[in-house]
């Protein structure tokens, strides 16, 4: 399936871009599976998702936990814990 991934704040700076379209292999349909698939890209990605910092996720603009599933065409976002207010 194809999804759009957005990155914000510190994570956007680490990744070095703010969005991308990706074609995922079969079976990658949860946030946790997506994190693990992205971690396969190399050190930067692995550190991002398994290092000390917490990475939060949203699917189609709703905060979700790691077990949440997405579908073809969805927008997934990764960002640090929010600090507004």
């Amino acid at each position, binding site marked *: 399936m194809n999804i759009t991934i957005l990155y914000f704040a*510190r994570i956007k700076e680490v990744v070095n871009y703010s969005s991308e379209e990706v074609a995922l292999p079969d079976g990658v349909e949860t946030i946790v599976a997506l994190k693990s698939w992205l971690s396969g890209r190399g050190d930067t990605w692995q550190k991002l998702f398994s290092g000390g910092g917490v990475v939060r996720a949203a699917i189609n603009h709703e905060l979700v936990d790691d077990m949440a599933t997405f579908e073809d065409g969805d927008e997934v976002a990764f960002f*640090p814990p929010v600090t*507004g*207010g």
Partner: protein
Amino acid sequence: MSESVYLNISVQPEDFEIGTELQQLRAATPQAGALVNFVGLVREMSAAGQISEMVIEHYPAMTEKALQQIAQQAAQRWSLLGIRMIHRVGPLTAQAQIVLVAVTSLHRQAAFEACAFMMDYLKTEAPFWKKEIGGFGQHWVEARVSDEQAKQQWQKNSGKSPT
């Protein structure tokens, strides 16, 4: 009851005038007997030193929706008349206003509690991120554990809700 609550939410780079905003909220909810508001400001000092500028990044497609959901939760939990929320984004100077949450209700208790509730949820669920800039360089503000605990306190006390 929540359908009749006046709701006005803005995400904007521009500053706001508190007096004007509160006046408008009062005009929109003339039955109100209580008005409570909170204004968050850019601190002059952080742990790293003097702050010259703060930049607030957000997730435009999600931000207003998240604030809307927070306001609706408050309106379901307390008997409220009106809610006005403004959150600024982009570059802000030290001492600038960042956020306004204002609530009207018939009696003070609902407005006090709903205002605190919405700020606690905004701090932990609305997709904004602060970056502090100063003589020390620049850094992203870290989320505080105490903010998450403040929100969880409301979840524990949900039985108290007067609905």
